[in-house]
């Protein structure tokens, strides 16, 4: 499993959209969809609690059968003590009934007690597994799956599964056995009456099979429609300023109404299916019982049958009512559980990123370690200038060799985002990356911490191919400040440190000029993020920057780190950042000259390739595209030409 590249694994996955559009589409056609087979996939999770589950089912069967013995006691009383007018016998019978009743009650409770903790445990385990798995799936997977879709799997679907294990699974078995035992009792009492009651079994079974198929389709369609509706809700909340800004809330509400209306239609279809099966399940057995009653009465009248037997027979038949009627909703629940399982494993089947890409062993590995150490020691000295003399071959910095990249979900014949990129950032050097909007700068930065894997070519850190380095190790060396600064619901401190040593906090905040945090209600312990204080774009950007420098990484990747800052703050951050960059190997995406000037050299990314490398001033004078990208206005362009 670990040998395939994540890109191919991702491609195998059904697209959530296509799943929504065609529930029985690609994915369904490939392997035959059988609810039973789908549900069997739950076995690994159920295995640890199987003893409890089996015992619970066993207990439930016994409890149910006790329910069936009660009519027999009644029969004995009717034909025995009552007929003989024997009060002592009546007492005995009633006492026996009471005992049976109490046992039944205790057994039912015992069954629930047996499964209560284990089943919540199964649910929790499955959720923890899902979470763990999702955290390790390629970023490309998350690009395609909205978090709402994932969340509904972690909550509603797992809850459905727990309920399935608690009820339908047990009770389909229990009710099946109960019906069987009940039928045998009836046949033993009087085989002719028993056969009459059995007649509707065949049409009933056929109806159930037809129902199962139709209901499965209807419920999948409805569940997916709920997903679409959730998306509209999510977007309307996240894009509220735009909707308000253009006064579009009415048309948005109309769109929502349409989708919700469609969902209503689907739910009604489900209800009609359910109503049909319930109607059949109610009618057929009842007709049979009626027939048995009439036949029984005739035979009692003829003296072929005792009154007690008829009473017992009918109470058995009526005691089977609930087991038979419940089959309808038990099947519906199983169906929904099947869909839930399918949805759960849709995600679980996606392959996580392999720790290390399969490749020939790295010949340079020992040297690389040495170079790491060399870099580490050098950090303690103040290096007056970036180590320009790259002729020294020991630590070789960050190198892109012939790197081509295409998003894993892009058609294989589409032009790649990055096309044979060669780029070398020398140890301790910082390189600015400049390029037009949409030229692939952010994509290139995402390759360094291996958020995506290169399609071909390789990236080396101090001579070691990052594809052969454990991700954990790679990411401990590389720190990234993302263009879109995400804060988690935690304190400022936790958000900045992200596992780094606590002593680094003050320094990191200093570099990012994020002194404002000391003025927050609880200082660095203030809760921020979704559940805490909301910060402005500039403030969040500074915290993201602090986060990147807090771990004292060997390699720093900054994606347009100063875009949201005002001029004065920007200047202060630049000054502080310059000190950090003096001895860190860094790749900085830049849109503006001021950011470019933080770096020692600049590379121009154009058409998916590195078009030029040099200092800012060199490129400004020699490269027209660069001058065009960097000159603030036509006047600047003229200056550049001069």
């Amino acid at each position, binding site marked *: 499993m670990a040998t395939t590249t994540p890109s191919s694994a991702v491609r195998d996955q059904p697209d959530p959209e296509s799943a929504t559009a065609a529930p029985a589409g690609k994915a369904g056609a490939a392997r035959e969809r059988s609810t039973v087979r789908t549900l069997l996939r739950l076995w690994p999770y159920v295995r640890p609690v199987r003893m409890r589950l089996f015992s619970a089912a066993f207990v439930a069967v016994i409890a149910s059968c006790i329910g069936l013995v009660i009519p027999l006691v009644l029969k004995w009383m009717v034909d025995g003590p009552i007929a003989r007018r024997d009060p002592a016998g009546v007492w005995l019978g009633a006492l026996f009934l009471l005992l049976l009743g109490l046992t*039944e009650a205790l057994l*039912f409770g015992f069954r629930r007690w047996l499964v209560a903790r284990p089943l919540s445990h199964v649910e929790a385990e499955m959720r*923890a597994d899902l979470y763990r798995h999702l955290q390790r799936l390629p970023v490309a997977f998350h690009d395609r799956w909205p978090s709402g879709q994932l969340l509904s799997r972690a909550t509603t679907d797992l809850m459905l599964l727990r309920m399935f294990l608690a009820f339908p699974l047990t009770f389909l078995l229990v009710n099946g056995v109960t019906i069987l035992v009940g039928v045998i009792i009836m046949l033993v009492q009087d085989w002719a009456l028993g056969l009459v009651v059995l007649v509707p079994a065949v049409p009933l079974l056929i109806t159930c099979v037809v129902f199962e198929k139709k209901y499965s389709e209807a419920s999948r369609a409805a569940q997916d429609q709920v997903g679409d509706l959730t998306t509209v809700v999510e977007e309307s909340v996240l894009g509220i300023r735009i909707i308000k800004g253009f006064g579009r809330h009415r048309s948005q509400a109309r769109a929502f109404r349409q989708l919700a209306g469609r969902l209503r239609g689907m*739910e009604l279809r489900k209800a009609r299916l359910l109503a049909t099966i319930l109607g059949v399940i109610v009618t057929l057995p009842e007709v049979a019982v*009626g027939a048995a009653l009439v036949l029984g009465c005739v035979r009692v009248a003829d003296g072929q049958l005792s*009154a007690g037997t008829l009473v017992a027979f009918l109470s058995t038949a009526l005691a089977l009512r609930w087991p038979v009627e419940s089959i309808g909703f038990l099947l519906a629940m199983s169906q929904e559980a099947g869909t839930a399982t399918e949805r759960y494993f849709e995600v679980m089947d996606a392959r996580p990123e392999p720790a290390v890409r399969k490749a020939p062993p790295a010949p340079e590995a020992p040297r690389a370690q040495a170079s790491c150490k060399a870099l580490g020691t050098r950090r303690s000295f103040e290096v007056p200038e970036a180590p320009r003399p790259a002729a020294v071959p020991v630590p070789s910095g960050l190198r892109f060799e012939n790197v081509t990249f295409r*998003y894993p979900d892009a058609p294989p014949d589409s032009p790649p985002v990055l096309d044979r990129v060669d780029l070398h950032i020398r140890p301790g050097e910082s390189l600015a990356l400049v390029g037009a909007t949409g030229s692939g700068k952010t994509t290139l930065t995402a390759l360094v911490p291996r958020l995506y894997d290169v399609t071909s070519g390789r990236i080396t850190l101090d001579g070691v191919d990052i594809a052969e380095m454990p991700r954990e190790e790679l990411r401990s060396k590389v720190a990234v400040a993302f263009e879109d600064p995400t804060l988690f619901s935690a304190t400022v401190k936790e958000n900045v440190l992200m*596992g780094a040593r606590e002593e680094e906090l003050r320094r990191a905040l200093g570099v990012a000029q994020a002194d404002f945090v000391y003025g927050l209600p609880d200082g660095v312990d203030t809760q921020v993020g*979704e559940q805490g204080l909301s910060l402005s774009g500039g403030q969040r950007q500074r915290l993201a920057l602090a986060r990147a420098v807090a771990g004292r990484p060997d390699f720093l990747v900054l994606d347009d780190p100063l875009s949201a800052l005002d001029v004065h703050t920007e200047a202060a951050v630049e000054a502080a950042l310059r000190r950090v960059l003096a001895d860190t190997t860094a790749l900085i995406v830049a849109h503006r000259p001021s950011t470019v000037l933080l770096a020692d050299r600049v590379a121009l990314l154009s058409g998916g390739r590195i078009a030029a490398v040099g200092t800012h001033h060199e490129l400004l004078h020699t490269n027209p595209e660069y001058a065009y990208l960097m000159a603030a206005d036509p006047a600047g362009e003229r200056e550049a030409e001069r």
Partner: protein
Amino acid sequence: MTGATTAAAPDQEDKEPPASGDPFDRDVLPSPPGATRTLLRSLLSPLRGRVVLTAVLLLLQQAAVQAGPLLVAYAIDHAVPAFRADDHGPLLAVAVGFLLCASAAGALQYAFVTASARVSQDVLLDLRGRIFRHAQALSVDFHERYTSGRLISRSTTDVEALRELLEEGLQELVTVVLSCVYISVLLLWLDLGLGAVAVASFLPLYAMVRSYQRRARRVYRRRSTAMAAVIVKFVETMNGIRPVRAFRREAANDAAFRVLNRRHERSNGDALLEMARYVVGSRVIANTTVALVVLWGAYRVATGSLALGVLAAAVLYLRRLYDPIDRLGMFLNSYQSAAASLEKIAGLLAQTPGVPEPAAPRELPPRRSGQPGRTVVFDSVRFAYRTGGEVLPRFDLTLEAGQTVAVVGSTGAGKSTLAKLLARFYDPTEGRVLLDGVDLRDLAVPELRRGVVMVTQEAFLFSGTVAENIALGRPDATREQIERAAKEIGAHDFIAALPDGYDTDVRKRGGRISAGQRQLVSFARALLADPAVLILDEATSSLDIPGERAVQRAMATVLEGRTAVVIAHRLSTVEIADRVLVMEHGRIVEDGTPADLIAGTGRFADLHRAWRDSLT
């Protein structure tokens, strides 16, 4: 339905408010007492007719279902002796009666299930729509304080809880109650004494249900709080997957998630155990009653004071009477969670929009031909947050029609607040904002948006095609107009290069659109809307220099004939402005033409120098 009373009791003792007394820190917003009940009533009252119809269907259905044992009793006590006496009539009647009841029960079952599904789906449709519309009507101020996650869960999981109650729970409850009533009446009618014993058993059962309900409520509340924590952690991790991966938080997250998940597991188990206790207790009561009835009944049959058929029927009925007891427990479960959810929804719906639509909207005076844009007047405007804290002290400001005004200043100086007041995202605490002499508060939304449009920093794209996203500015725009807007702003080239051009779905394959490109799309959107007053709030921060230059070049023509307010920390934008306002601590400290201010010695001259320096 009246059972909803208990739901109105706010349950806040379990929630830990993360900070201060701000009501927005809590999941449940304060709502007037009884809001939950009022909400439920207002949802159901338009469907009153169909609710009654559904109830009648169920009534008849239960009547048909419960007739069975009665026919059994009749058959044993009358039809058999009659048959012996060669009178086949009664037995024939029993046969026909049974057939009729069976088919009626089935048909009515179908009718009832579909009818009740229709009622509950209509209620849900109504409720979903209400939440959606209400959330859309609430002010931006509200959205900034009530996090998006909560709003989303209000319209998803909370509605879902009500769905479960309506679809499964309520039907269960009504069935249970109805069959209880029917069976009790039948039992009493069959034999007063035996019936009385059965009815007496309701007393301990009721006590059982009450105590279960009380205990379950505590457990459920704990469970839903635990679940909410799990959800927050989950969503946050998935939305921030890049930093999670890049900073190797997987293991730490696993551990944190495990703790939250465990807490949920424990309370979940507690809830199931409560249910187990309830089942044992209620079954014991039920089965004891059965034994008592049999004892007494058999005794009386033995002594001849009761017919055998009656005893048989009574026992059959009793067993049936107690069958749905478990299901009553399930109903209570879904009721608990639905009540909690409805309370949250009612709290949300009880929020009054901070920026209400006018009751009697006015229209803007028609623009005279050649009149460039519209005049904006801030008339003694003051703005403070509801929670206190003055952002903008009282000020007066007039922006002449057709003027392009740049607003500069450091973070927190109040630039965005000024813009939001003009876009009517907020209403001023005091004073008025006038557009050509008309108070913004008197303008209906469509009229307002023909007047003022704001482009913000966050360039959010909705799912759909690029063309649809641009057309949000003017839904009736033709493809030509859309493309013209994109061309004018310099977005056409990159859009044309997308796999399906303007028809590229922004969420699907190949639809990756960079932050800068998104901003271009939102510019095109604003341009297409063609407002008299255009506000740009940091709208160029993600653009690269050529992109910004293209936008600026376009703006020279675009802003022609409009009033424009441009907020930017990049001073490049300022050069096209006719007038610059420098803000600090909520006050306008400098006001003049760019040339005048640059030549002076004020803050703007400083800023401008620093900015020029940053360009070299």
